[in-house]
């Protein structure tokens, strides 16, 4: 390995100049010659039969070029895995906000005017909004034949089929380990609690946008806010019924993703409008459409039952998770809310365990993925539950956790054999920085939350690296940078391996025709997987340069080393970088291109922990909670870029604080009532607490240069840490989120009445 130069540098984003000057092009910025504007008419009913649609007046409006309903489209359903959502509603609508009619017109104003002229007659059907009610035998069924969908929810994965008769169960999973009955028999105390976590929105500031254009040769060009262009291309090809190479997904800047930008959203529809009108079409969702008909996080009802010994050792743990998936399951790339299931047992030593997870259809907005999908919901429940158990047993919450967290050699509840387990160290680091146990003023409390998640390892990543005669290194990747700094980090991997300044590296995101396959951002995989592919390509380039140097020096390649931008032969002769490149250029060896790919193989053996301590002050008169301080401690590997790494920690943390304290996508009778960003409360600069970050470093990660993932860690523990701190401060326990003054006030009054 060369001298470390680039790894560990707090480099600003390589695409920074474009983003701070307004030159960066996002999907909504795409302007094409002759472009029309697409808009959609959405269902006002949560569940209804479409009786008739009258388009005549809309079609006659000047400037309108296409008006489409499901009757004009092929009979296809789309989705990231389960393909259950139609491009436009056919015969029936299943949530308020489902797309029914679409229009393309010369201006956005004309498109909206046309939609106002469309008349749709509906016949309302009985609707169901609560997942527990939706599972009852007499509940209205949302999907009559889910077994006919691609990747159908039936048969269930991993267990019995108790819920088969109820079509509203979209997926069910069981995880079992040990013998639950035995575990509860060994318990001296058993505790059961139920928690509710309402839906929240990803809150990216860029609403979904897309554009479609069809070339004279039939090539379909798509621009869309999507973090995984290759997967989007394949889904689009399926929707259009064409070969994958007919579709090209073009790179655009992405205005925030956080898991929410993995779906096609309007882009398939946009193509059908372009096809019908013969013109390029652009569609930009409004933020109200985002909040009411996007793909927010699943609400979850979490029931936990845990058996413990009197001295606080867990003997058995049972979790029942019910996720409300809304009207369609199409917005997640798996059959189940993976992170939620995984986090349902926490980072604890649990000999006997059972997790049952259900995802249930209701007549509400379809749910999708959001940063560490499922984990904030179940972690709020697990970490609150553990706190409650500790207090019931009279054990300090930190001490209770220390007695139960995994250590090296333990098998995790999900059966993993993690190496280099650093849960204890991370927890202790957080506690120490927070001065856990030190005296507190009245009405001030501290609470702990802890979360475990392994670095992502799935799919395939690719990279192509070219060095040219003037020493520029051009990295071609298919990976979109959703804002995390992945272009920069990949550039640093190249710079490190080639011992080049980062300013010599140019990172280009190719379109899906130009770049090689890349599974893209998601599941905390990108720095690991794309980083490893990039490192392979960079190593191939350095080997090729060494071979050239050997040719020039007249020796065998294995007798030449590249060090500090010089090529040194074993006999002491050397060649500097620039002379090699000019010689190579003269001999037509430049530009030189090499590729690398990285395919997920065996699972990663090292995981990551985040432990947080929140310190709150509660106003005993009003219930107002002020978050005074948060300590966030992270078990990390080699930090490739301290600036972007810390940016992930801080950004995630404040999202977690939002979920803990202000955010609640309110749904009443199937209608989202927090329908704009004035009502849906994202945290502002005034809402952030004093922050201390502690990094517990070890060079053990699976990523390039032993890095670990950081993107989906800090947002998970805050709800539990805050709720636990509120209890510590004033003795009020909240079983649902967010932690609002109203709920704390009610808890304080109830407590007074009991006394």
């Amino acid at each position: 390995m060369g001298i470390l130069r680039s790894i560990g540098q707090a480099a600003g984003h390589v695409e920074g100049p474009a983003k701070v000057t307004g030159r960066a092009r996002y999907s909504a910025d795409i302007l094409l010659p002759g472009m029309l504007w697409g808009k959609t008419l959405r269902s006002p009913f949560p569940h209804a039969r479409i009786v008739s649609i009258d388009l005549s007046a809309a079609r006659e409006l000047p400037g309108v070029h296409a008006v489409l309903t499901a009757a004009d489209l092929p009979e296809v359903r789309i989705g990231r895995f389960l393909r259950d959502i139609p491009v436009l509603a056919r015969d029936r609508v299943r949530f308020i906000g489902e797309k029914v009619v679409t229009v393309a017109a010369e201006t956005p104003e004309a498109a909206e005017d046309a939609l106002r002229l469309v008349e749709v007659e509906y016949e309302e059907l009985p609707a169901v909004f609560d997942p527990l009610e939706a599972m009852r035998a007499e509940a209205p069924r949302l999907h009559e034949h889910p077994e006919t969908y691609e990747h159908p929810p039936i048969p269930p994965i991993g267990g019995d089929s108790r819920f088969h008769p109820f079509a509203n169960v979209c997926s069910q999973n069981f995880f079992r380990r040990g013998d639950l009955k035995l575990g509860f028999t060994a318990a001296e105390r058993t505790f059961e609690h139920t928690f509710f976590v309402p839906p929240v929105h990803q809150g990216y500031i860029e609403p979904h946008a897309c554009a479609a254009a069809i070339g004279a040769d039939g090539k379909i060009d798509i621009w869309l806010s999507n973090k995984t262009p290759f997967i989007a291309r394949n889904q689009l090809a399926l929707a259009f019924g064409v070969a994958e190479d007919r579709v090209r997904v073009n790179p655009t800047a992405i205005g925030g993703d956080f898991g929410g930008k993995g779906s096609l959203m309007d882009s398939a529809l946009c193509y059908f409008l372009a096809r019908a009108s013969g013109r390029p079409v652009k569609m930009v969702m409004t933020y109200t459409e985002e909040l009411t008909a996007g793909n927010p996080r699943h609400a979850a009802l979490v029931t936990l039952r845990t058996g413990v010994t009197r001295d606080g050792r867990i003997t058995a743990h049972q979790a029942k998770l019910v996720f409300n998936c809304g009207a369609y399951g199409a917005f997640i790339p798996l059959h189940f809310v993976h992170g939620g299931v995984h986090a349902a047992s926490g980072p604890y030593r649990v000999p006997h365990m059972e997790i049952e997870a259900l995802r249930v259809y209701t007549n509400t907005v379809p749910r999708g993925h959001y940063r560490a999908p499922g984990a904030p919901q179940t972690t709020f429940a697990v970490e609150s539950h553990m706190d409650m158990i500790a207090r019931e047993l009279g054990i300090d919450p930190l001490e209770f956790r220390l007695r139960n967290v995994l250590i090296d050699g333990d098998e995790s509840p999900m059966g993993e054999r993690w190496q280099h387990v650093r849960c204890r160290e991370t927890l202790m680091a957080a506690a120490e920085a927070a001065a856990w146990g030190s005296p507190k003023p009245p009405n001030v409390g501290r609470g702990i939350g802890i979360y475990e998640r392994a670095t992502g390892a799935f799919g395939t990543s690719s990279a192509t690296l070219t060095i040219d005669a003037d020493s520029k290194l051009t990295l071609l990747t298919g990976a979109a940078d959703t804002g995390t700094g992945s272009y920069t980090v990949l550039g640093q991997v190249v710079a490190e391996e080639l011992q080049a300044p980062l300013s010599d590296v140019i990172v280009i995101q190719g379109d899906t025709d130009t770049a090689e396959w890349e599974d893209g951002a998601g599941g905390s995989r990108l720095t690991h997987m794309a980083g490893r592919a990039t490192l392979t390509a960079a190593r191939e380039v350095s080997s090729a340069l060494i071979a050239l140097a050997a040719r020039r020096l007249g020796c065998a390649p294995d007798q030449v080393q590249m060090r500090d931008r010089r090529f040194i032969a074993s006999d002491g002769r050397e060649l500097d970088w620039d002379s090699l490149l000019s010689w190579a250029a003269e001999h037509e060896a430049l530009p030189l291109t090499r590729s690398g790919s990285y395919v997920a193989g065996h699972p990663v053996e090292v995981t990551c922990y985040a432990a947080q301590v929140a310190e709150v002050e509660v106003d005993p008169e009003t219930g107002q909670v002020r978050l005074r301080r948060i300590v966030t401690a992270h078990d990390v590997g080699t930090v490739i870029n301290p600036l972007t790494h810390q940016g992930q920690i801080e950004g995630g943390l404040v999202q977690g604080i939002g979920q803990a304290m202000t955010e609640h996508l309110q749904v009443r009778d199937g209608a989202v009532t927090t329908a704009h960003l004035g009502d849906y409360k994202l945290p502002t600069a005034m809402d952030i607490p004093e922050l201390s970050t502690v990094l517990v470093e070890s060079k053990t990660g699976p990523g390039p240069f032993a890095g670990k993932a950081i993107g989906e860690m800090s947002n998970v523990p805050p709800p539990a840490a805050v709720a636990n701190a509120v209890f510590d401060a004033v003795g009020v326990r909240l079983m649902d989120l967010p932690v609002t003054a109203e709920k704390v006030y009610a808890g304080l009054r109830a407590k007074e009445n009991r006394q």
Partner: protein
Amino acid sequence: MRNIQMQVNGKAVAREVPDQRLLVDFLRYDLGLTGTKEGCSVGVCGACTVLLDGQPVSSCIVLAVMAEGCEITTIEGLAEGDRLHPLQQAFIEYGGFQCGICTPGQIMASKALLDANPHPTREQIREWMMGNLCRCTGYYKIIESIQAAAEGKTGP
């Protein structure tokens, strides 16, 4: 339809626009200045912040006709050629953005702050920037970026 004239980034522009055209759409689509972004469309997220006669406004709730005769500065008007404004430089160096969608608005709002108060305290920065939402950074690095620009701590 109405004829309007204004100065945009120091250049005179004249266009005929529908009465109801919003300033954000006028800038983005009539003038092609897509550096100004639209987020919430209701004047709360700050992504569309531009300076109107030096004052920060949400261009998604201002009609283009209301800017008649005014001087508008957008993100495209900040750098001088390749030389970035100190705030632009600071946002890069101090990690004041990630995805960048709110960044033009953040930078325009913070320019208005520094124009009015060249040496703001951390609390004054937080309060002023409250109207500019960012979902990526958690604001810590935005505040640092503005402080660094105010203190001249940017550039090589």
